[in-house]
Structures are given as C-alpha cells and as structure tokens.
C-alpha cells in the first residue's frame, strides 16, 4: 500500500444554478491575460449540449484519454512512433475555432459615435485581431439550450440513446437541461503528463495538483490533444501550455480555490482523499462496467489504522490525516457513494467528482395523459419507482458519469431521492411514515446517513464544505529560500518572461 494524499473537489449538480460566477472568478484571477483570452480553466456547460470546446467528448475526433489494448493501457492519441510522425502536425489538436474566437465589444462607440438616426451600438470585435467579427460561437453558446437544434442534439452522450428518446427530449414538454461546471480533473493517471514529450507536466506529491512547468514547456501541445477533457490550453502569446492549477497558492494558505470560494449555489466541496498509488495502473485497466468500483476501491479509509500507519510511513503528517477524516470528499465519494467521476471511460482516473442532478418527472407519463396535477412529493415517489419517467434519461446521466453503467446511476439517484422523500416527510409532514422509511431502506441508507447527507447537502458551514489540511508551505521551502522573502510583494504574471527557442 502506497498511501498518497489528494485534494479533491465535489460538484453537487443539483445545487448548480448555472450563473457562471465560478468561471468569472477564475477568469479574473488567472486568464485575464494576452494569449489566454479564449481559455476558461473553469467553465460551466449546459447539458445536453456540446460543451467547450465544441464536442470535446468526441474522442473519435480529439483522441484524448486512454485506450485498453492487449498490452495494457495506451494513449488514444498515438503510440510513441506515431507521435514522432505527428510531431509537427497533429490533426487531433483542437484549433481556435473548436473553442471560439474570443471577442469583446467596442464600447467606446457608445460614447464617441457621431449623431445618427439610430442608436449607436457596441460592435463585437475579435480579441485576437481587433477586427469586427460576427460572433458564431462562444464558450457556452448553447447556454440554457440556446442553440439546442444546432448544438445540444449533437451531444456525444446522447449517442447510445434510442432515436425516439432523443426525439422526445426535443419536445417542449420534455425539454430539460442541467449544468455541468468543469475544471481540470487533476487525474491520477493523467494523459497530458504521459503525452508531454518535454516532461514539462507533473503531478504534485502533496496534493496531486497537475501542473505545467512553464520553463520546460516546449509548445509541442501533445497535452492539449491528449487531455480527454480538453483542459490544457495553449497560450499563443507566450508559446506555452497552461491549465487549471487548482488555485494552489490559495489552498496553501487555507483558502478554497476561487471557483469554489465564489460559488453562489455553494455546490462545491473540497477535502483530502487518501488513495493507493500502487493500484492506479490496475484500477485504470478494467472493463468499462467495473471502472467505478475499481476507482472507489483505491480511495482509502482514513479511519483505518492500517491506512493511517501506511500514510505515516509515507511521510504524511497528522494534520493531513485528520483533514482526510473530516473530508466531505471522502463522505460523498466513498462513505455514501454519491459522487461519481466525469467520464470514467477515459481512464484518466479523475479526482474531481460529481453528484448527479435529479430532474423533474415528465409531464406526459402515459400517452396523451397529462399528470400536471401531481403533488411534489408524488413526483418523488413516481420517480423513485420509475426512474425512467425522469426527464433526464438515466442512460444519458450514465453516459456522463458511469461509463454507461445504468445500474450504478440508478443506485445513486435512488439514494438522493430517498433522502429527499425522507426529509420532506420529516420537515413538512412532521411524521416519518413507513413508506418513507421503506424508500430509504430500498435505497440502502439508514436514517442517520440520510440526515448526514441532508445536512451536508443543505446546511453545511463553510468549514464543513472546505476542509483544508495545513500545508506548512513555509516549512517545506525554508531549506531553499526565506519564507518571508516575498512578503509584501503582490501581483500576477510571469516571474521570468519565458524565452522562446532556448
């Protein structure tokens, strides 16, 4: 057992209101620079939708992630030899139009325009060329299904759904969408690291943050192509690749990453997970239907004395272990088994997890029979018994979070629903009846667990949502530099301007 620590984020999708505050917070801190205009280290997508960059999940085009072959896991992008052949022209690389051409508006015109018969407008201009453009797409063009005929119906996750279900989803009565906020998943088996010919990307030992060393990056952009989540971006101005750094400077000082901190719906949780690094290769190399189980298997119980002893043998201090024991991430991922990785079939072993959203029941549950008179609680029971009546097809959610395994998705959704039914009985009716208790038991939860899940979902304090270990960064750097050397200094940007061709 090789125990390591990881900072993991949980996204409770039922709570996401799609306000993009996280994206804006991230943009303002990290990517408001020349060359980074088109980057959204954090973005929020509307689902069903094609996301950002357009159809990033379509790995037949982008070839990200890993592939299972006879000799084990291989990069889907290329073998080493193919990589050498494609060194200077990589067809799988997304180009700027796959993201979008970043734009702003000519606001000056509102003030400086000469007098005309019509109101002056702020014309859109490209942030790259500065010329006026017609905006054709954006980082969230199909927001709230705004472009559903063009984009949402091309969501790769709809592919395995029967044609009639896909058609039904386009009917007005069944229209449904949810939001999917995405950051770098800081994978345990990162394809970007594996693909980098310069060895410029690495995973930090202490918290698992995957970082690009800007001094070693030689702009091969293999990471951009190899990342199945398209979360490494190429900065055309500096000629280096960049990605989400999980706001490690904030975490090291005990603050939540900017996206999580600013979240209006408080959907994000962060905490330490302990995992067994020795078992990563085996866990990534199992059949699709076993991926979730194998993934959960390598997350270790921080209360287990054997795990604690192994962690200490690996130099993990008590502060981190205690933090792991209080971690909301551990509770959601392992204890309650509610949080799921996004697209486990890419086999990069992501360490950011999602609690899938519940959706309303369809208005038409039988042919020509409108059931809009159902009470809220009846919806829930209706759903609990017949998950297929949910507007978001279970198969669709399974394609997103469980590599198509509907069984696991049903278990998770039923748990969430049973907690809702139980708490509604308890707080609205004041009585918990046998029917509610039966749904809990059917979902495999005890009353205590249901209350704990409810509290962590609806009433958590800031300290319960964000459990940060003491990083003691000042201690780990004091051998090499004075921890107070930069005290009082502030600002962003490159410490050294990267030089090209060196």
């Amino acid at each position: 057992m090789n125990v390591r620590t990881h900072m993991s984020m949980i996204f409770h999708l039922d709570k996401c209101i799609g306000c993009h505050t996280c994206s804006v917070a991230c943009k303002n801190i990290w990517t408001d620079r020349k060359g980074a205009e088109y980057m959204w280290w954090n973005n929020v997508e509307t689902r069903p939708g094609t996301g950002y960059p357009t159809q990033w999940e379509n790995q037949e085009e982008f070839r990200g992630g890993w592939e299972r072959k006879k000799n084990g896991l291989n990069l889907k992008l290329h073998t080493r030899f193919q990589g050498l052949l494609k060194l200077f022209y990589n067809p799988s690389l997304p180009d700027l139009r796959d993201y979008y051409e970043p734009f702003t508006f000519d606001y000056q015109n509102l003030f400086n325009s000469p007098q005309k018969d019509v109101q002056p407008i702020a014309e859109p201009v490209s942030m790259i060329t500065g010329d006026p453009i017609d905006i054709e797409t954006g980082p969230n063009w199909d927001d709230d299904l705004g472009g559903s005929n063009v984009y949402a119906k091309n969501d790769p996750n709809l592919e395995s759904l029967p044609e009639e279900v896909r058609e039904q989803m386009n009917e007005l009565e069944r229209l449904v969408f949810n939001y999917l906020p995405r950051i770098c998943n800081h994978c345990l088996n990162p394809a970007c690291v594996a693909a980098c010919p310069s060895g410029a990307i690495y995973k930090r030992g202490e918290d698992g943050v995957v970082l690009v060393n800007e001094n070693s990056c030689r702009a091969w952009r293999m990471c951009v192509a190899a990342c199945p989540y398209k979360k490494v971006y190429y900065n055309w101005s500096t000629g280096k690749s960049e990605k989400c750094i999980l706001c490690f400077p904030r975490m090291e000082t005990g603050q939540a990453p900017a996206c999580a901190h600013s979240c209006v719906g408080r959907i994000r949780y962060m905490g330490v997970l302990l995992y067994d690094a020795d078992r990563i290769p085996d866990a990534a190399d199992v059949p699709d239907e076993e991926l979730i189980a194998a993934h959960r298997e390598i997350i270790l119980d921080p209360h287990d004395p054997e795990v604690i002893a192994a962690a200490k043998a690996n130099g993990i201090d008590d502060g981190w272990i205690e933090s792991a024991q209080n971690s909301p991430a551990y509770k959601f991922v392992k204890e309650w088994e509610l949080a799921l990785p996004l697209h486990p079939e890419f086999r990069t072993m992501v360490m950011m997890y999602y609690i899938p959203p519940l959706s309303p029941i369809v208005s038409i549950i039988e042919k020509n029979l409108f059931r809009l008179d159902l009470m809220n609680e009846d919806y829930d029971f209706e759903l609990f018994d017949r998950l297929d009546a949910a507007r978001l097809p279970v198969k669709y959610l399974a394609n997103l979070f469980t590599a198509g395994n509907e069984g696991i998705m049903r278990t998770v959704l039923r748990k969430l629903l049973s907690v809702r039914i139980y708490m509604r009985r308890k707080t609205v009716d004041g009585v918990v009846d046998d029917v509610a208790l039966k749904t809990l038991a059917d979902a495999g939860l005890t009353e205590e667990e249901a209350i704990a899940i409810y509290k962590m979902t609806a009433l958590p304090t800031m300290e319960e949502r964000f459990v940060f270990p003491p990083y003691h960064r000042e201690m780990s750097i004091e051998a090499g530099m004075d921890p107070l050397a930069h005290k009082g200094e502030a600002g962003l940007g490159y410490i050294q301007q990267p030089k090209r061709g060196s």
Partner: protein
Amino acid sequence: MEVKHNIWRSLAERSFVIILLSGVLLTGSFYQATASPKHQSSDEGQGIFEQKCISCHSIGGGIVVGPDLEGVLDRRDRDWVASFISAPDQILADGDPIATGLLAEFNGIPMPNLGLPDAEVESLLTFFEGGESVAPVTSDPLPSGKISRGEGLFTGGEAFDNGGTPCIACHTVGGVGLFGGGSLGPDLTHVFQRYGEVGLASSIQNIAFPTMQGVYAEKALSNQEIADLLAFFAAADSEGKEGVATGATSLFWGAGLLGAGVLFGVMAFFWPKQRENLSDRLRRDAGITSRRHS
C-alpha cells in the same frame, strides 16, 4: 571579576601574537613577490620561447616562418620589440612602417597576437638580451606524404589518429569539399607557398595560433599525418584552384528546388484533408451558413 579579567588578558595576548604573525607573513610575501621574477626571468623567457615562439622563429638558426631573432635587440628599439610582441596585430593595424615592411618581406603572414601578459614579454626580452641561440624545431626528417590521404585528413574523410578536428571545419582549400570549408581560419589554398615547407611543418607541429592551440592541445598530429597534409597542401598550391567545387552550386539549387516541389506536392494532397473544426461542421449540418465576410 576574576573571570572577566582573565578574558581581557587572554584577548590582549592573542591579538599581540596575531599582529606579530601577520607582520612576519606580510614582509615575507612582499619579499617573495619582488624577488621571484628577477631571479628566474631568463630561464622563464627560454621556456616561453620554446613553447610559443619556436614554431616560427629561431635564434641563429635561420628563417623558419618569421625572421631569425638573433640580435633582434641590436636591430630594433627594445620598447618597440616589447610592444610588438604584446600586440602585433595592433601595431600592424596602426600602420607601423617597420611592421608593414616585415609583413611584406615574410609573404604577408602576420604574426598572431599570442596574448602574452607583460611579465612574460619582459621575460622574453631578458632572454633575448642573454644572446643564447635556439635552433628551429629539428624533428626527425618527415616521412614522404601521400596527397590523397592528406586530402582525406583535411576533409575529415579520414580521422586523425589522436582524434583531432578535421581542418575543413575552419579552413578552406580551393576546389576541395562540396561547399568549401569553414571561414573561421584563413584560406589555406596557397599556404604552402606562404609558409614554405619547413615553416608549415613547424607551425603544425608546434601550433602557435591561439585559436588552434585549444583545439589541438590534447590531440597532436603524428609526423606521418603532417607529411600527408604537407603533400596535400603542396599539390593544392600548385593546382591553384579557387572557390568551391564546380557544379556544387547548381547541385545545391537543384536539390533544394526538387525537395521543395516534392514537399508542396505532398501538401497539396493532404491539405484539403485537414479536420474540419467541429463547431463549423455542426453549423453546416444545421444549415447555418457562415456570415463571416473574410
């Protein structure tokens, strides 16, 4: 009180010893510094001469590459000799009449600036004052050389036994090599005529040129290799070709154009097969035509 007193006393004692010791050392080192050069100057001068000058000069042994230095201080002003040894290139560049005359007399071969520090120049002059004679490098008579092997060694077609760099990396000989040689060192087409056989052999055997010294310091050439090179240089001098080999330029352009043509041909085949970006494709499928004017 007792303790404090002791500390002060021991401190005073120690500082006295330190001052005494440093006085002795200072005087000694001053004596050493002033005494050593005078004492050994003449021997040192001979050492420097045999190391750095002998490839081109003798004292009483006749002309090698440069003039015989016997009685040089009788012929020239001592200060002039000193400044010439320190920076011959500077003196020449300043248009000094004696230096210009010497350059013309010795086949236009300028003396390289050896970068000698003033102390070494002074040692050399002291050695010249002593009037001792030094014969030119008298090695065993060189074996007979083969022109073809000499050319091989020059172009790098054959390796030097001690692994020295082939001459062509820095030098050019007219008509040798597809695109000529390097231009760091001088053109060697007529080097045989300028240096003469003895001078050329001597300067290869005992290299005086600062740039070459570093390159061949650990990789001396064997006598057979020198003989082969000399034979090659003699042949190159008498043939007297200039410039690069004939046909090389047209070959260069021809190959370049052909290669570019092939490259563009391959590109013309693959260019239209580039991946269409996905958002464009989705819009096209949905029947939305791009409104971009460009």
